[in-house]
């Protein structure tokens, strides 16, 4: 079974500054995806970024980028130029790919990091 650990229950950052959220995971699998999802106060789950384990290049989406260290099983999210709308709970999630096929790619989530952006 896979486990995902987010060691920072809460963080805060000043508007326009940069913040990094940590995530580590434990798996014996070699073929998987990693995600960051954002859950604002509305409770909607919003995809932030995705990383395929077979790719060495770190994923980037506008102000959001990841530092994927496969050997260390680490997957951190960096948010640049933080904005008030970034205030949310951020969940790191693991998706195992494998032989069971489509529909078996359930997400395993960490406990989340609550990020507050301060004006």
């Amino acid at each position, binding site marked *: 079974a896979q486990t995902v650990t987010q060691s920072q229950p809460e963080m805060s950052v000043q508007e326009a500054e940069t913040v990094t959220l940590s995530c580590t995971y434990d798996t014996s699998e070699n073929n998987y995806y990693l995600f960051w999802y954002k859950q604002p106060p509305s*409770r909607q789950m919003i995809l932030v970024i995705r990383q395929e384990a077979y790719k060495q290049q770190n994923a980037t989406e506008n102000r959001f980028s990841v530092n994927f260290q496969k050997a260390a099983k680490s997957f951190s999210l960096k948010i640049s130029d933080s904005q008030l709308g970034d205030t949310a709970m951020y969940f790191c999630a693991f998706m195992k790919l494998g032989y069971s*096929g*489509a529909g*078996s790619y359930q*997400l395993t989530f960490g406990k989340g990091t609550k990020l507050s952006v301060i004006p």
Partner: protein
Amino acid sequence: AAGVIQSPRHLIKEKRETATLKCYPIPRHDTVYWYQQGPGQDPQFLISFYEKMQSDKGSIPDRFSAQQFSDYHSELNMSSLELGDSALYFCASSSTELGDTQYFGPGTRLTVL
């Protein structure tokens, strides 16, 4: 772009009643997942469907059942509701052709009194 639709958005039930939650996936998505998120918790996988067939089950109580219909919408049926079933229930859909990334609906908030 079209998103996942869930209905109802809010539902209040009494203990021992039944509830039905509906999910309409993004058009042309072939896979649906159901998750339960308790207060202050991370989402937990319940059950999934691919091409209208059940694919996988997680920590879903026997009191719950689900199915996916010919138009790909899915329903989660919950019977003999308990106070502990109060939670946010998410449906997510994905496409095997588009890389299996799951996109979540807005959720149904179920309150059991």
